[in-house]
């Protein structure tokens, strides 16, 4: 595999565009963005840790209730009053309604176990949840894992059904999860691969293994700003070429940015012209009008 090299960023004007990109939150405070404080990344390990923490909290609460009872009893005895009632340990609430959330479970599927056996350290976590298989791998090994999934006769995942990413601003150690949904048509199975990438990391492009990843990776770049190494055409796909920012990031204001005060022709045309001039300049073409004098 070739060394992942940073795709050249086009030279953009330094100054931030004025007008339509600025939104006055003081005028409408209800439109302020609320950043998430938790990392709702589904994972067996976090689920078990959460369960353990909840059990520990319950235990601590029970111990405190007992201690409180002891002090109350001693106080009542000293004052010659009736002893207070001993505390009853609260029974954990039964979660037996129909709308139960399926929790992450230990991986039992042969595919996941095979992946772990073949890849060893490169697998960070495997688990099943609601019958879906998830395999989290290290961010540097994703191309190798995809190759294995596609080419191994026992796995044979022919299709990359979807590739997407999520922003986790509250997480430490990573900022995004990039998710690959693989489908095996011949074996009628689905598998989810996941990598966690920090800001600025360039995951290897999946185009070499699944050519259909091309546009999906462009969409991820457009919406979340994750660039992929060795991608044939790492440009925006949905937003205009001269767009600023990445709209699916959690810190991006999605409400209240409607283009109200645009002076359409000057703003956009001027900027696109500038980009065209720069691009032409890089190719050695001088598009500028010759001066009269």
């Amino acid at each position, binding site marked *: 595999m070739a060394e992942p090299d940073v795709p050249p960023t086009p030279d953009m004007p330094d100054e931030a565009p004025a007008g339509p990109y600025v939104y006055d939150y003081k005028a409408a405070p209800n439109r302020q963005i609320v950043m998430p404080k938790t990392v709702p990344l589904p994972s067996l390990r976090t689920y078990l840790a959460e369960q353990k923490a909840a059990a520990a909290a319950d235990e601590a609460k029970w111990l405190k209730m007992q201690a409180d009872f002891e002090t109350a009893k001693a106080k009542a005895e000293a004052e010659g009053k009736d002893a207070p009632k001993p505390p009853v340990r609260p029974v954990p609430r039964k979660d037996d309604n129909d709308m139960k959330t399926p929790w992450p479970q230990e991986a039992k599927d042969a595919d996941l176990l095979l992946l772990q056996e073949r890849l060893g350290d490169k697998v960070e976590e495997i688990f099943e949840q609601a019958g879906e298989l998830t395999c989290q791998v290290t961010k540097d090994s994703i191309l190798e894992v995809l190759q294995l999934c596609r080419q191994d006769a026992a796995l044979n995942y022919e299709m990359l059904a979807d590739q997407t990413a999520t922003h986790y601003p509250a997480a430490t150690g990573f900022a995004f999860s990039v998710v690959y949904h693989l489908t095996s048509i011949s074996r009628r199975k689905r598998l989810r691969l996941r990598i966690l990438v920090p800001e600025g990391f360039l995951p290897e492009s999946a185009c070499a293994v699944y050519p259909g990843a091309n546009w999906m990776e462009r969409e991820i770049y457009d919406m979340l700003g994750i660039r992929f190494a060795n991608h044939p055409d790492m440009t925006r796909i*949905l*937003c*205009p070429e001269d767009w600023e920012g990445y*709209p699916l990031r959690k810190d*991006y*204001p*999605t*409400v*209240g*940015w*409607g*283009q*109200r005060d*645009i002076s*359409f*022709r000057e703003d*956009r*045309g001027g900027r696109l012209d500038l980009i065209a001039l720069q691009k032409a300049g890089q190719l050695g073409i001088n598009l500028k009008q010759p001066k009269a004098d």
Partner: protein
Amino acid sequence: MGINQLSTLEHILITTKVEKVMNWSRATSVWPVTFGLACCAIEMMAAGASRFDFDRFGSGIFRATPRQADLMIIAGTVTYKMAPVIKTLYDQMPEPKWVIAMGSCATAGGPFDSYHTIQGVDKIIPVDVFIPGCPPRPESLIYGFMKLQDKIMTSSLADRYKDIFEEVG
């Protein structure tokens, strides 16, 4: 011959103004450009189909090129990326030309007070008739179109080119 009696000439002639004839011919053959942006375009297509039959008012011939069209029905959400295309199409239409903004998206951004939507197509091109609704029913579109016909009938060449005439002097 009395002044109130019709002359032979008047039996075979209609006297009118050139402007009125032109307005009449324009108002009864407004050809829209085939161009839809979002869900409202479905209602526009329904208005053109046989149940509502837009053609009754002389406006069913949706032209596939802006060069042959007089009317642009902006039916749908105007995104920031689509705006230059709309502007180009509008510029390509020959004068006289009219614009109907159909639905709340095209009139004011609709439910999308968001980063990608232009809050009303009148930010980029002049609009003659606004039709509210999300989506407006074909009847609304036809009503809006008839309002446009009224507007065309009362318009005058001098009004339309007043600025130019004033400039030329």
